[in-house]
């Protein structure tokens, strides 16, 4: 799937630019992509280093495990593949909660660590497990309570009520998350019980 999308993007993009005669533009883009990705990686690197450190404190002290046991009866229903009290569950929960508060940057390391933890439970290492897919569908549906970026942008442009859109955001993200979970559940049921 990724393979197909990736090649489609490149082929369509290059052919279309050549057809519309923008040869110089496409040269520039191809060369600049490497620099742009390096900059992006370097932006998230320190954040990941910092949070992996803090997270490890929580892991060594047994806090993550404790939280997992507490939330297992609730969140565990969405992730039947994760054993009760497994660290993965509290990492997923932390990622979702921090995302809800609009702190996407701080949430990412928890998400990556959750994926690592899920990969340990995964028996087919090159294929996504059910739990991984469910987790990422929830994540990409953008669960939010406080959309910090938008609020600050609205303030910057002098909105009379920068936060008036918060309720609308919560409802929209709630609808899409619930739909995502239902679609995922139906597909899983159709595929039969795997992983």
């Amino acid at each position, binding site marked *: *799937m*990724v393979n197909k*999308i990736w090649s489609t*993007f490149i082929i*369509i*993009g290059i052919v279309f*630019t050549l057809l*519309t005669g*923008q040869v110089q533009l*496409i040269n520039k*883009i*191809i060369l600049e*992509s490497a620099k*742009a*990705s*390096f900059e992006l*990686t370097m932006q998230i690197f320190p954040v990941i280093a910092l949070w*992996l*450190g*803090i997270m*490890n*404190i929580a892991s*060594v*002290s047994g*806090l993550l495990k404790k939280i997992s046991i507490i939330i297992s009866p609730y969140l565990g229903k969405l992730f039947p593949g994760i054993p009760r009290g497994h660290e993965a569950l509290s990492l997923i929960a932390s990622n979702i909660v*921090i995302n809800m508060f*609009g*702190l996407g940057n701080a949430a*990412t390391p928890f*998400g*990556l660590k959750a*994926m690592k933890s899920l990969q340990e439970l995964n028996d087919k*290492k090159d294929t*996504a497990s059910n739990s*991984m*897919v469910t987790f*990422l*569908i929830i*994540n*990409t*549906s953008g669960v939010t309570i*406080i*959309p910090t970026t*938008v*609020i*600050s*942008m*609205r303030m910057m442009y*002098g909105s009379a*009520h*920068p936060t008036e*859109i918060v309720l*609308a*955001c919560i409802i*929209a*993200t709630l609808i*899409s998350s619930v*739909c*995502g979970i239902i679609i*995922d559940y139906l597909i899983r049921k159709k595929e039969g019980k795997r992983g």
Partner: protein
Amino acid sequence: MVNFISELMIPLLVLFIVIYAIIKKINVYDAFVEGSTESFQMILTIFPCILAMIFAINIFLESGLLTGVLELIRPVLSMLKVPVEIIPMALMRPISGNATLAILNNLLSDFGPDSLIGRIGSVIQGSTETTFYVLTLYFGSVGIKKIRHAMWTGLTVDLIGIISSIIIVLLFFGP
């Protein structure tokens, strides 16, 4: 107020984690350094995936194909009373976080944050995620090649999120 709660979140979380570890008699410094060391390996795995994604997405976006498609569907959208100006942002949303923010920035400065278009843009931004980025980063970090139905479900969910955003804003603030 809401921003204040958000700002408190991180300091309180760090404080709680450290105090809990001290009560459990853990060497917090050693644990921190040990955990942080893992980040190098993680970044090395992630970089090629991010590079591959940005490379393909930039070529696709800059080719101007999306703008062409937009011109084609413009008549249909104006019939449905959807402000056409919002569509580039909607199309871009799952693909590129930076491009979406740039478009939203323009919408807010051109139409104002309290206009219908400004509000729809704000809600779309606040209620959706950059699906391509999340999937590439998260699956890439653990070397998953077959992502099963994650991609198209993610994109469907984005579409549902964007349509809900437009409908909800029209209901809440519509004329």
